Each structure stands twice: as structure tokens, then as C-alpha cells.
């Protein structure tokens, strides 16, 4: 074990401190500035945030989304996308996009939550749109799990699979697995409908129902596999694969073992019979 003092001199130490500090600042920011109020027309703090957000936006997003979020041939207009879309896209590592492909992939997150909130505030100031939800909207509520299950199977499992393990769409697109996604990102995904996912605005799926779905997804994550080893929870395919590999090999080994073991006496008898040319 290295002691802390040697670690302090590590070349990356400065970065770690910086990240921690930024993270701390972000948490503070999140705690004091309720996201719902990070709206264009409220207060000075948010004016500051918007200005910071605009600066960040101009450096890393404008090349695709245009200097004023009006869009370009590389990316859609963000006017009216709302802070929820920005928070979702950037905090799950989708934006800034890198390789174009069938679907923009998740990558490591490049910004602190504070920076994301600033960019979100800026985009929100451009033309409104869905707002980042508050904690109470997406917190897990155990009494809503049952309703959430029904809603999930009606609205989401056709793309995301019954256990949220993900599923394919056409042409290399896919609905990702939901086993790691944060409740907040889930809420925002439903609200904004990223890429090939349909949008579920509150008129279609009221806020309480979103919360129910989130509660269901989270509760299934740490549900025990009551039947034993879960085999990846992808249903009959893994069961079939399992029996044709492990099961078949085991049974064949048993068969070989039993067939090869003969009582000594009868083995001799067989040998004798063979020598005498012919049993019956």
C-alpha cells in the first residue's frame, strides 16, 4: 500500500483535486439552485449560469448545433429541446457526439454536473422545452411498483425487453439496457425521447406514471433470482444454450462413464464369449 503522501505527489493528483472540487461545487450548485428554477427568466444566479453555459456550449457543441442552437447539417436545432434533453444527453455521455453511426453511443461523461446544468440552463433559455425533473418526481416509490410493471410492459418492454436488458431495432439501432441508468436519466429519457425512442410527454404519460415506471425498473434490479442462477435473464435462449452445452456434455460424460464400467466378472465373461465366437 502506498501512503497518501506519495500519492499526493502523483502527476495526476492535481486533476483529481480539480475534479473533486468541481464535483463539490456542482453538488452545491445542484443543492442550492433547484433545476426547475434554472429557467431563463428567473434570477441573477441563473443569468450567470446561462452565460457560463453559453460559453461551454460555444466551445464544444456549436460546431454541430449552430452558434445559437439553430442546428446545422451535423446536428438538429436545440431550440425548444429544453434542459431535460441537455441533461440527459450530456450526463449519459451521448453528447458531445463523436462518431456518426447507426446511433450515437454512450461514452465517458465529459462534464461535471455543474457544467451540464449551466449548458442546460442556456439551452432552456433559447426556447423553453421540457425541464429537468426534481428529485421528488423520479424518486423510487415502493408502492408504485405494481402499476409501474404494467406500464413498463405496455410502453417500454417491446424495445427494452421484459427485464430491461435491451433489445434491437432496425439497421443496427438498439434500445439500450436499463440496468445502470439513473432514475433521473430515465425520467428525462421518457420526457424527451432521445434519438429513436418515442417521446412520452406528460400528456401521454403523467409524471406519476413515469415515477411508477422508474420505481418498477429500479425494484427489479435488485430482485433476487428466485429460481437460482439467472443465466443473464434473457429468457429461453440462454436456457437452451445452457442445456446444449453444459447439460449435453455432462450427460454424455455420465453415459460414457456408465458404459465403460462393467463388473469384472461380466467383463471376463464377455471376453470369453468373444473368444468362443459368439454370445447369444
Amino acid at each position, binding site marked *: 500500500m502506498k501512503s497518501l503522501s506519495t500519492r499526493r505527489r502523483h502527476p495526476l493528483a492535481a486533476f483529481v483535486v480539480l475534479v473533486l472540487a468541481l464535483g463539490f461545487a456542482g453538488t452545491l450548485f445542484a443543492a442550492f439552485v433547484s433545476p426547475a428554477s434554472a429557467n431563463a427568466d428567473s434570477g441573477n444566479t441563473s443569468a450567470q449560469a446561462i452565460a457560463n453555459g453559453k460559453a461551454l456550449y460555444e466551445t464544444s457543441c456549436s460546431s454541430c448545433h449552430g452558434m445559437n442552437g439553430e442546428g446545422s447539417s451535423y446536428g438538429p436545432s436545440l431550440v425548444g429541446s429544453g434542459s431535460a434533453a441537455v441533461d440527459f444527453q450530456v450526463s449519459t455521455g451521448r453528447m458531445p457526439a463523436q462518431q456518426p453511426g447507426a446511433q450515437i453511443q454512450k461514452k465517458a461523461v465529459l462534464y461535471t454536473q455543474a457544467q451540464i446544468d449551466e449548458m442546460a440552463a442556456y439551452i432552456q433559455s433559447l426556447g423553453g422545452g421540457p425541464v429537468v425533473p426534481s428529485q421528488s418526481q423520479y424518486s423510487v416509490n415502493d408502492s408504485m411498483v405494481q402499476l409501474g410493471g404494467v406500464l413498463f410492459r405496455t410502453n417500454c418492454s417491446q424495445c427494452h425487453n421484459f427485464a430491461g436488458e435491451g433489445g434491437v431495432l432496425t439497421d443496427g439501432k438498439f434500445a439500450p439496457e436499463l440496468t445502470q441508468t439513473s432514475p433521473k436519466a430515465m425520467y428525462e429519457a421518457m420526457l424527451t425521447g432521445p434519438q429513436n425512442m418515442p417521446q412520452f410527454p406528460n400528456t401521454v404519460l403523467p409524471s406519476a406514471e413515469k415515477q411508477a415506471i422508474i420505481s418498477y425498473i429500479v425494484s427489479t434490479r435488485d430482485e433476487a433470482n428466485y429460481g437460482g442462477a439467472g443465466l443473464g435473464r434473457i429468457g429461453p435462449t440462454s436456457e437452451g*444454450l445452457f442445456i446444449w452445452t453444459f447439460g449435453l456434455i455432462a450427460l454424455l460424460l455420465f453415459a460414457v462413464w456408465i458404459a465403460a464400467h462393467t463388473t469384472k466378472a461380466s467383463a471376463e465373461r464377455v471376453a470369453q464369449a468373444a473368444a468362443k465366437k459368439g454370445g447369444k
Partner: protein
Amino acid sequence: MSTSTAGEEIVPTTLGGKAADYLDQRLGIAGAAKKNLRKIFPDHWSFMLGEVCLYSFIILLLSGIFLTLFFTPSMGDVTYNGSYTPLDGIRMSEAYASTLNLSFDVRGGLLMRQIHHWAALVFVMGIMVHMLRVFFTGAFRKPRELNWIIGFGLFTLALAEGFCGYSLPDDLLSGTGLRIMQGLVLSIPIVGTYISFFLFGGQFPGHDIVPRLFTIHILLVPGLILGLITAHLILVFYQKHTQWAGPGRNDKNVVGLPLMPVYMAKAGGFFFVVFGFIALLGGLVSINPIWVYGPYVPNQITAGSQPDFYIGFFEGALRMMPNVEFNFWGHTLSLNVLVPFAVVPGILFGGIALYPFIEAWITGDKREHHILDRPRNMPTRTALGVAGITFYGVGWLNGGNDLIAIRFNLSVESITWVCRFLIILGPIFAFWLTRRICFGLQRRDRDKVLHGAESGIITRSPEGAFSEVHTPLSQGELHKLTAHDVHRPLTLTEVTDANGVPAPNLRRAKLRAKATQWYFGQRVEKPTAEEYHESITSGHH
């Protein structure tokens, strides 16, 4: 068994002996038992595969009886209030609710469900592997063609039985499976709609299907399977088991162990091994966790919906078929469903069922066979078998195209397209390759017979030449490698002679001659006695 001198009565002393004597005096079973219990069974691991099917079927019956005590075969609407809270207060069918109760509230219920389901997978897998062993060893040849047909009947019944069982719990996956099945029924021209209404007692899903499937699943099909298994085993017993070539073995005898006690002890032991293995799986590995899937509601569906593996081929064929559909006179002809549902499996299954007869016709072989073929010695048959496996395998693979796509980051369409080509080209390639491998192996056998086995010892002659010492084979091994016949194609005259009618059937005869040419045209000859002696006496290796 006791020895008795003629005329002298033996008075049994032990309890068992007395009981046996009592029964014998009334039923006269001793004579039959003596003969049958001494029946010989040859020993080889591949002959245990049929037993795997038998034992897993017994396990299915036993665990199934337990399940029927608690399962309610009804589509009646109930509100669930059992101990699985995530579904508390949800409306569902009684079938689904009783399966949940079985899983969570009946003591040992989940274990029994899982044993039952794993046993079903082992059963169908066992049948497939057993069928392949019978195929590749030529055990289906005369006089066992009828037993092959019975076995084929068992295979199709097992598929039907599995499908019905899968559909019973009325969970999201089983309902989806039924919906696909209904689609297949609907695709039958003209009468499809009527049959669908008849089956489901009205609109899908209706209230009738689960009780009906239940009767089929617990009474009709198991009854048929039981009857056919009995017939199957009686035939195996009566026709005696085939055996591998070896010294002292021929088409007229069977060399092995007597049924009683040795074979019975082994078979009984194997039953417990299979039972124990399936019970372990049932206890340790989850299968069909229906509570995760949720109850079936017709407007719900899940990504990654999959059938059990033995339906995977049909699913894959369905996913592979291009979308071809015609409309005329108010009728739709859905070739996109009809072809993968009826035509392709029809060809595959028809081919399996009729293969013994097709082969006999092509080869003109009318003799009885009790010695098995080594697969390499029948290259065309073996290659056909591998081609069939490839065909089935590609269909199967495509049944899981969505899962493959998501695991390996591919697009489903490209997998489907690859499979469309592969299902045609794959079997052709497999056929070609397998035949070549078989011929290669035959040549190696021939070399071994003539020159002995490689010993791995290199010697250097006084002149400096290196050569490997070959050790001659034992008598037994020589026999094994040379026991087979090398078949040759029928000539046109033989064909017409065989049919007895030369002129009118000439075209058929020509076809047959062509077929045997294809079947046996290329071959590796066995070493003749002269060749063998020459190689021995020349002292060459």
C-alpha cells in the same frame, strides 16, 4: 438362479422365493422371464442416449403430476394477492395466478416447476441426439425402419407436447408464442380463419385455449407418447439391439451383457444419475421465471421474445422468409408465413421420416443389418446428416437474430441476410466437406491396416535414411477396420432387374442408377487379402 435337476421339485425357502413361486404357478412367468432376463444388450455409450429420453420422460410424468395438483387451467380473470408483491393487485388469468402460487406459495412448487421444465429440455435434446446417433450409425436400416418411424412420431409429439406446456402458464412469452401460432394457422389458405376461430373458440386469445391445451398437454399427447415408447421399446427388445463390428460379432448374434442383472443395474443407476442431474439443475438454475415476464395481455410484447430451443428453428425460418404475400378475390395468400411454417419444416421433417426408405431405394440394399456402420464408411449418408444439421442450425441461429445483434453490436437485417444465404450455401458446403473428411478417414484406416499404426519411434538406417516404425494392429482392430462392405453403385441392368420390369420404368431406373452413382460413385476400397499379405510379407514397416 438356482440349478435344478430334472424332476426334482425345489421348495423355495426365502420370502422372495415364495412370492416368485406363487406368481409363477399362477402366471407361468418363469419361462418367459428366464429367456428375457438373459437377453443380451451391447454396451456402448451412444446406446445410452435412448435411455436419457426414457428417463427424462419418466421425470416429466412424475413432476407433471405434482404440477397438475396445483395448476388451474382457466383463463378466468382474477386479481392476484399472493406473496410475489411486484404483481400484487394486478389482474390476470387464473392459469397465470396459479403458476405464480406454484412458484411462491406451494412448498417445493418452484423446484418442481423447474425440474419439469429442465426435464423437458433434456427430453427433447435427448431425442434429437439419440435420433442423430441412430441416423449416423445406420441403425435405421432393415429391419428397424418401422422403429425409426415410431421414433420420428415421438420426436414430433415431443415438440407438440413442449409447445403446449410452454403455452399453459399464460405469461407474456407463452401468450406471444400462442399469438404467433395463431398467425401461422391464419396463413393456411381459405380455411385458416375458420380453424383459428375453432381452436380459440372465437377471437384470440379467448377463454378456451388454455383448458384445451391443458387436456392435450396432460392427457392426449403424453398418452400417445407413452404408447409409442412402449411400442418402440418392445421393438428394440424384439429385434435385439444393434452392435458395433468386432471379433465374434456378426449380423446374427448380439454380444454384450445380460439384461438381468448387469444391464438392469447399469440402466437403473443411469436413471438415478439423470434424475439427480435434472434435480440439481432444477434446484440451482432458474428456468422460465414467469413472474419476470408478467401476465399475458394481448397489447403487450417484449423485446427478445423467444421460444424454447426446439421451436427456435421455426422461429428462425419465420424471421428469415422474405415478405411475400398475394391478394386475389378477397383472399390473402401469406407465403411469408406459410412457407416457413408449413413448406420448409414439411421438407425437413418429411425427409427425416422417409430417409430409411429413400436410402434403401437408392442403394438397392434389401439385406438385414444388425452391425452398425461407422459414419466414415458411409460418406454420403454422413454428409447428408451434417448438411441437415447445418440447415437446422442456421434456422435456429436466425431465431435468435435479435439477441445476437444486441450482444455483438450488429444489425438484425445483416444477420438475417447472412442467414438467408447460409441456409442454402451452408448445407452444400457442409456436405462437400464432410464427405471429404470421411474419405480421408477411410484412407487413414486403409493405411493403418496395411502399414500398422504410427509408433512415434524414428529409426535411422545404416545408409542414413530416417523412417518411422509402424506397429502392426491387433487382430481385433484389423477386424474393426475391415468389417464394413464397400458399396458400389447399381448398374442400370441391376436396377431394371431389381424392379423386374425393364421397359416401362426405364426413366425411373435411370434416375435410380444416377442416384446410386451419386451415393456410392466415389469410394475408398478396402485392402484386399493379397494387398494385406503383400504388405506383411514384404516386411515393409
